[in-house]
């Protein structure tokens, strides 16, 4: 049945080469924890992606209840966490996943750094990876404001003061991010849009580039 469906599609679209490019490749021994336990350090990249998928899925469910508006944001998070069935779990996954993704990405970065895997010909993949890192930090910063409790509000205020201290453009940068002269209603909607649309879009594009390059160049050889 599955085979027949596959053949039917393959006849029309010739997907076999595409499928081979994505999936049909060998995994060398030196990155396989089944052969060398210490090779678990090569798992961190995959786990980062795994947690990222969890973040995207849990985030999608959170937006079903979250209201990006200063009167209702807190109340909607409160309701989501304490009244909605499994809402606490979904918010918990998104909250702890945000930290975990940073941890995993950090470990992945260190693995790539200390195994010298960023060296030629993989320079571009390192740069894209660092851009992913910055996007993730941006997601962390914007997402922190959304529950609109005191912690969120004052942390964002501190962040804005830091942005303001940048010479010449700082003031404009701050107003652009805040959407005005204070951290308020505009800031919340702006951060919500950045957190939910802008940065995830950039993240997906960068991830596509990251994966395309690793498939094209293959994993770096043993040390």
């Amino acid at each position, binding site marked *: 049945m599955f085979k027949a469906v596959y053949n039917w599609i393959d006849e029309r679209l010739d997907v076999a080469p595409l499928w081979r490019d994505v999936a049909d490749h060998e995994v060398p021994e030196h990155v396989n924890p*089944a052969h060398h336990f210490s090779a678990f350090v090569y798992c961190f990249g995959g786990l980062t992606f795994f947690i990222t998928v969890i973040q995207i899925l849990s985030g999608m469910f959170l937006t079903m209840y979250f209201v990006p508006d200063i009167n209702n944001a807190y109340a909607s998070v409160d309701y989501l966490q304490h009244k909605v069935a499994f809402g606490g779990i979904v918010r918990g996954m998104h909250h702890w996943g945000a930290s975990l993704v940073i941890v995993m990405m950090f470990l992945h970065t260190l693995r790539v750094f200390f195994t010298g895997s960023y060296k030629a010909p993989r320079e571009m993949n390192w740069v894209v990876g660092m851009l992913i890192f910055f996007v993730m930090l941006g997601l962390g910063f914007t997402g922190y404001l959304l529950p609109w409790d005191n912690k969120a509000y004052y*942390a964002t205020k501190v962040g804005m003061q830091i942005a303001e201290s940048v010479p010449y453009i700082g003031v404009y940068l701050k107003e652009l991010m805040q959407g005005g002269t204070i951290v308020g209603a505009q800031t919340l909607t702006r951060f919500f849009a950045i957190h939910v649309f802008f940065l995830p879009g950039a993240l997906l594009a960068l991830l596509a580039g990251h994966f395309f390059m690793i498939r*094209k160049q293959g994993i770096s*050889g043993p040390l």
Partner: protein
Amino acid sequence: MAHGHKSDEKIVYVGDSRIRKRTNKNSVPPDYTAFPGKSEVFIPNFLLKEWLVGCVVLVGFLVLTISEAPPLGYPADPTNTAFIPMPDWYFLFLYQYLKYPYASGDYVVLGSVFVPGIAFGALLLAPFLDTGKERRFYRRPVTSALMILSLISLVYLTKVSWDHYQHELEITNTVPEHIEREEKAREAAEKGESFSAVKKEEPVALVDANDPAMDIAKAAKCITCHSPDLNGNPKAKVPSLHGIGDVYSKEELVNIVTNGNGGMPSFKDTLSAAEIDQLTTWLAKQKKAQ
């Protein structure tokens, strides 16, 4: 041919210039035979093992999620001056760093732009700074030393920042709001009450709404300004008389009604002393139900 037969030429044309001779240098992943040892196919053999690792991580993650509720404090209040700001843990190193004298005040540009800019810029461009062929970290001492130094400072700054936060909580005798909120919610749940951190202004009901004093209020035209239900007129800054007993004592109310207060006229001539006494006795009873 203009370029001759140089071997490092990216595109080598053979006869027909539209057909590229593929050199495949660096562009195709090395065949597994390029690496020594036991390779295995990605799908399904390796992927199944990787999923096992994923499952272990997922179980650990869900245990954390279920055992530790995500923190939620009280609604943001811009007038709160006592709140100790705290960014998420992975920004703490920067937060702490910016507190040092040479990274703040007059030198804030050094702290907020130059040092992080150089550090993160160097990290971003690492492959172009560390261009040697050597990959083993112990054979590239400068690069590795810089990274290890950065890691030590990251851990140190984060730790100092966290300790400072704990210290501040201690000297101000503050319980972090998300903990306080959770505690109060738990106490309320034990008593079988509902708990909400969202403050709602509950309307205060009139006490003894059928008291004869209400007729005095009507007759004396109190209701022209304070509105027929005595809820006041917030736009004209006329206060509500609901719960007025919580604001003023009877003596103060007698004084206000007799002599007027701000925009309110004196009722000395309209009402008799007995009527004022009766009215203010009733008004003093207007307290919020406990």
